[in-house]
């Protein structure tokens, strides 16, 4: 391809990788994380002095804000984790018992596939993969026939991190509950961009990350655990409570938290949630859907391009994937950054089974994920860049 790869324009740096981590963050997120480290940095739950109490209050407020966002009555049922991967590990390894059978969708991320794969290879569990359509919709008829007497858990990726398809959560949860099966929802791509009413949907376990659409710093995330579900702790250690016992506390949230929490990160996360609350989830969703619609329509105009996923933007969240005929997506990503200052992600996006379902394995796709701070003009610049690249591919 005749392209000058060295003409880097770092000043432009248009960011289309919000499905990996959101950027920029609201200004208050940066300030709160810094303030927490500079002035308020007591170790939450320990020591007893005023800085510690301030850190504890901050963590409590963050838990309350998440509970309000997800419509959870009892904030103690939300535990903090490093990210969605960590939360999914806590859920899977804490919930599953030897002999259990698990159903998961083909859209799952490696954060689900790998823990399940290890448990399966170790002979602890058996699994069934729920296939999905080319548009990324799980096969609900297959689901009805997939339950076994030992099935204890259904794992659902709320939105594909490859093509953005949003799963029919309510139908799938109702189906699982009819069979007495619990449901773990991976909301890594949806928390903060789609309204998730945990109580109304009757979700059993929900893993989320703080650094994507919740607009917080990396190293934040968590897990909702419905009352009545007791997960075996993945980690044990200091909690600042019941210190005289060599037994991890049974009370939530400490039951599933050990060691010093990321108070600076959680201070930032709280501001991210506040920003979402002040802006309104509906407005965020509307903006991102409009961007996606425009992006998809203009990509579809180029006959050399295949766009994956549902046509209707309102049925999607986050990621949009495409390929250009007879090209290596890694090469296209490289040119987008080096010639146009556009940042995106290329490859398999840690979801190999999804690519097998879409016919994009092993080459992968070019993934574009605008965010709330992406402007219509940014989309136009991106489309013009892709048009130029497509023209170059035609020349060979």
């Amino acid at each position, binding site marked *: 391809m005749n392209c000058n790869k060295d003409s880097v324009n770092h000043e432009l740096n248009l960011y289309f990788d919000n499905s990996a981590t959101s950027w920029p963050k609201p200004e208050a997120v940066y300030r709160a994380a810094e303030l927490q480290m500079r002035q308020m940095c007591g170790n939450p739950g320990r020591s*007893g002095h005023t800085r510690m109490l301030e850190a*504890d209050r901050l963590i409590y407020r963050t838990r309350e804000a998440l509970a309000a966002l997800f419509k959870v009555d009892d904030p103690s049922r939300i535990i903090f984790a490093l990210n969605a991967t960590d939360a999914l590990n806590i859920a899977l390894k804490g919930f599953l018992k030897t002999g259990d059978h698990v159903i998961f969708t083909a859209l799952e991320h490696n954060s689900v596939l790998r823990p399940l794969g290890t448990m399966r290879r170790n002979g602890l569990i058996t699994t069934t993969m729920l296939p999905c359509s080319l548009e990324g919709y799980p096969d609900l008829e297959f689901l009805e026939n997939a339950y076994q007497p030992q099935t204890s858990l259904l794992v659902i990726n709320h939105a594909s991190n490859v093509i953005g398809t949003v799963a029919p959560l309510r139908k799938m949860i109702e189906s699982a509950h009819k069979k007495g099966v619990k449901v773990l929802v991976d909301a890594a791509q949806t928390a903060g961009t789609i309204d998730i009413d945990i109580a109304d949907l009757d979700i059993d376990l929900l893993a989320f990350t703080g650094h994507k659409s919740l607009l917080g710093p990396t190293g934040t995330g968590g897990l909702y655990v419905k009352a009545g579900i007791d997960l075996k702790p993945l980690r044990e250690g200091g909690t*600042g409570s019941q210190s005289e016992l060599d037994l991890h*506390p049974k*009370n939530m949230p400490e039951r599933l938290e050990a060691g010093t929490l990321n108070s600076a990160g959680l201070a930032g996360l709280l501001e991210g949630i506040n920003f979402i609350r002040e802006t309104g989830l509906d407005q965020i969703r509307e903006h991102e859907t409009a961007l996606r619609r425009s992006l998809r329509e203009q990509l579809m105009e180029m006959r050399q391009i295949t766009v994956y996923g549902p046509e209707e933007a309102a049925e999607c969240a986050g990621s949009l994937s495409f390929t250009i005929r007879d090209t290596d997506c890694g090469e296209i990503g490289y040119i987008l950054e080096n010639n146009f200052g556009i940042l995106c992600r290329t490859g398999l996006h840690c979801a190999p089974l999804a690519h097998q379902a879409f016919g994009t394995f092993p080459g992968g796709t070019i993934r574009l994920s605008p965010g709330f701070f992406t402007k219509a003009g940014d989309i136009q610049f991106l489309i013009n860049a892709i048009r130029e690249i497509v023209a170059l591919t035609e020349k060979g």
Partner: protein
Amino acid sequence: MATNCYVTFPTIFYAIRAESLLKQKDFTFKMVPVPRSISSSCGTALRCACPDLSKIRQYLADHQTEMESFYQLEEDGFKMPIVKELQSDELQ
């Protein structure tokens, strides 16, 4: 010599929840490190005047706040206090 009452909590989550709830209702209390004379836990306890304890306990119980134990301490400067754990019939 002063007499104070203390509430301990199973986790710091409930200690902060108690503080947050009581602050909204103008109860008089203070969050303090758990006195070593009542627990070796490194957490936070609620201290209040003993006549207020029963009201505080009821309010917290009505607002889904788990509490662990209740104590009355006779405190005299830096001397070890005289500790009495209060049973539920003493908290009415």
